[in-house]
């Protein structure tokens, strides 16, 4: 009798284990850089909780922008890894190899291939994008040799084919097409580049910049056909033999590479039990929340609202994906406050042909109040869009890349550029010195009392119009779904933006107060931590001390000014011992200029 009972219990247990639901606090779909960055960020906040990445990608996370170096065999496959091998294991991030087929948003689980399920507390969709390719109805689109370069597999395929290719056609007018053309030229292949519009990267570059790039690529050996589209592909026994253009020209080739852009992989939204706002990407707010509760989206698949146009758009770029992944990770780790840093203006820095290209913000903005300045001296081209002494867009094409991230931060933080306009225009702008001076001017004003409350207004520069503190994406409220989504969503979403607006100013003021401390570790990323106090003490005009303050500086500090070494300048003091020894050595001698130091002086002057 008892044995029978035991058996029954056992059966229940078996049944139970059969429908047992795997569950993790954080579930991430996709192991691109956004997914992995989110997982690592979430791990920081949830040290002991299960974090899972579900992916069907057969390789670990790679540096996708470096694939162009892989295409010309400058890198090996191992060098493509974005994080050292084994990072996932070291961070205790569980990677599940499966394809996600559906999302049950009410019961909070995802359905995987092979009839498996996986429960989540918060879910991140980071499925990335897929190439658009040629339209289905185009004759010959399925011939062997018609390909897109998007994933690692594509590049492996590409490299295998190279030996058989003498002529190739590249279609598309973007940076990716340009990189592909350069890669083919590197291998000694004749390249025909078909661009639909008149110019290159028509949405990001103006006529002059586009001409510069196209001329550069032409000089490198490519044959460029502008205002040309492909009409069909001719094949011979299943393989590409040529491409026909809209000018009825036949270009013989063995390879057709389509670089006509990507589209977000949003198919999951159609398989979500609660309708998710989707329009050329999953619509998310500034904190990457989708319209469905506890589901986030980041990377190429997420569409954020552009504060200038009010339209939701994706930012399919590396830096955006990393930044979004980290924000999503912080959100899923329960740290709203870390997600408050806005992503800022669009930023794209890359190499096109043999030139470096940088576009930040909206250099092509042609509104009435926008002043456009251009300069094409010194072998480069720069275009500035300025509104009331504030930079709103910067475009630079040339042989050297300016300090791109610093320029992004000038735009993001809305600094006045009156004093550096010329340097920006000429392309010899020293961003770091400028930003530190901005800060020191602010501190000086604060000391002299021109600013009453420190940080209430940071020299008029703190509040930038148009940082993407966007409203939440409003959930689709259908009758069938109102029960499933409690009233929490709407009420919470409405109240939040106001809170955030109130919070922006205090955060700045806090960080600003810290400025009076000389050695601090982590103030605002681009303006803090610089020893303006020591370095500029002698230069009364641009300095932060008033005359009387300077006179009151103790002897100790005086000595220290002398011996700030060129290479330890703005770094925190390492230890007292080091400083002591520097003092000793500084007594007898002034700084001995090394060659490196001299070049800096020249640049500075």
């Amino acid at each position: 009798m008892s044995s029978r009972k035991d058996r029954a219990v056992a059966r229940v247990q078996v049944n139970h284990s059969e429908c047992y639901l795997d569950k993790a606090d954080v579930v991430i779909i996709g192991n691109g850089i956004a997914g992995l960055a989110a997982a690592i960020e979430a791990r920081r906040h949830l040290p002991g909780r299960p974090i899972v990445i579900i992916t069907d990608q057969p390789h670990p996370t790679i540096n996708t922008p470096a694939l162009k170096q892989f295409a010309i065999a400058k890198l090996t496959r191992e060098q493509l890894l974005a994080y050292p091998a084994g990072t996932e294991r070291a961070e205790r991030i569980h990677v599940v190899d499966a394809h996600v087929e559906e999302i049950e948003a009410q019961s909070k689980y995802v359905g995987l291939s092979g009839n498996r399920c996986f429960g989540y507390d918060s879910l991140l969709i980071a499925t990335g994008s897929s190439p658009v390719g040629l339209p289905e109805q185009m004759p010959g689109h399925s011939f062997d040799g018609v390909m897109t370069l998007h994933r690692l597999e594509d590049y492996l395929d590409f490299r295998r084919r190279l030996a058989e290719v003498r002529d190739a056609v590249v279609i598309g007018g973007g940076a990716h097409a340009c990189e592909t053309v350069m890669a083919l030229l590197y291998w000694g292949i004749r390249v025909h580049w078909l661009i639909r519009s008149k110019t290159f990267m028509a949405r990001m570059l103006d006529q002059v910049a586009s001409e510069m790039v196209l001329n550069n690529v032409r000089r490198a050996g490519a044959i460029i056909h502008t205002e040309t589209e492909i009409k069909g592909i001719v094949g011979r026994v299943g393989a590409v033999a040529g491409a026909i253009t809209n000018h009825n020209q036949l270009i013989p080739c063995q390879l057709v590479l389509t670089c006509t852009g990507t589209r977000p992989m949003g198919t999951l939204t159609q398989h979500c039990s609660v309708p998710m706002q989707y329009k050329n990407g999953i619509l998310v707010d500034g904190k990457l929340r989708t319209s469905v509760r506890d589901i986030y989206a980041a990377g190429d698949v997420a569409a954020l609202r552009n504060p200038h146009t009010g339209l939701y758009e994706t930012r399919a770029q590396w830096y955006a994906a990393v930044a979004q992944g980290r924000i999503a990770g912080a959100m899923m780790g329960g740290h709203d406050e870390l997600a408050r840093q806005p992503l800022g203006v669009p930023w794209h820095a890359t190499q096109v042909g043999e030139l470096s290209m940088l576009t930040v913000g909206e250099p092509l903005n042609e509104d009435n109040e926008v002043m456009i300045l251009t300069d094409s001296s010194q072998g480069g081209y720069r275009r500035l869009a300025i509104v009331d002494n504030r930079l709103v867009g910067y475009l630079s094409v040339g042989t050297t890349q300016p300090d791109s991230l610093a320029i992004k931060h000038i735009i993001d933080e809305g600094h006045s550029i009156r004093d550096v306009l010329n340097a920006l225009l000429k392309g010899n702008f020293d961003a770091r010195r400028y930003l530190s001076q901005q800060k020191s001017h602010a501190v000086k004003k604060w000391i002299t009392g021109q600013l009453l409350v420190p940080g209430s207004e940071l020299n008029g520069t703190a509040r930038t119009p148009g940082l993407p503190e966007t409203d939440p994406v409003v959930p689709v409220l259908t009758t069938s779904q109102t029960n499933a989504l409690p009233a929490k969503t709407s009420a919470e979403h409405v109240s939040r933006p106001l809170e955030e607006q109130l919070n922006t100013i205090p955060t700045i003021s806090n960080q600003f107060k810290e400025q009076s401390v000389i050695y601090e570790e982590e103030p605002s990323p681009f303006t803090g931590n610089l020893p303006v106090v020591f370095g500029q003490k002698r230069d009364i005009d641009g300095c932060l001390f008033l005359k009387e303050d300077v006179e009151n500086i103790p002897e100790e500090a005086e000595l220290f000014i002398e011996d700030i070494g060129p290479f330890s300048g703005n770094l925190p003091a390492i230890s007292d011992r080091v400083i002591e020894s520097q003092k000793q050595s500084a007594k007898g001698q002034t700084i001995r200029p090394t060659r490196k130091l001299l070049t800096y002086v020249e640049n500075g002057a």
Partner: protein
Amino acid sequence: MFKMLKPNPVILHKTKPQVELEIQACIGCNECLLACPALAEPITIDVLNRETIAGPISASVERFTHACYQCGACVSPCPVGLHRDAMMMWLKVRLLKDPKEVHMER
């Protein structure tokens, strides 16, 4: 004369938060390492980036960090306009600051 020779320390290197942002923006193309005259071992950018920010520093990266003499050859090849010299400087600082914490168990 003195003023002319005296460098402004501000322009030389970047702060830690800036370095972290730059590492986020790094696309991993390895151009900086290819240009480096001091690199003697096959170090890859993923390892270098990860160890620059936090965590233990492996023996090879430590040797490379000591070998780096801040020539700046890594800055101009960067397609994105980042400053590997500043990142290396932070590695040097990390090695000096808390040698016990950062050294990997060997």
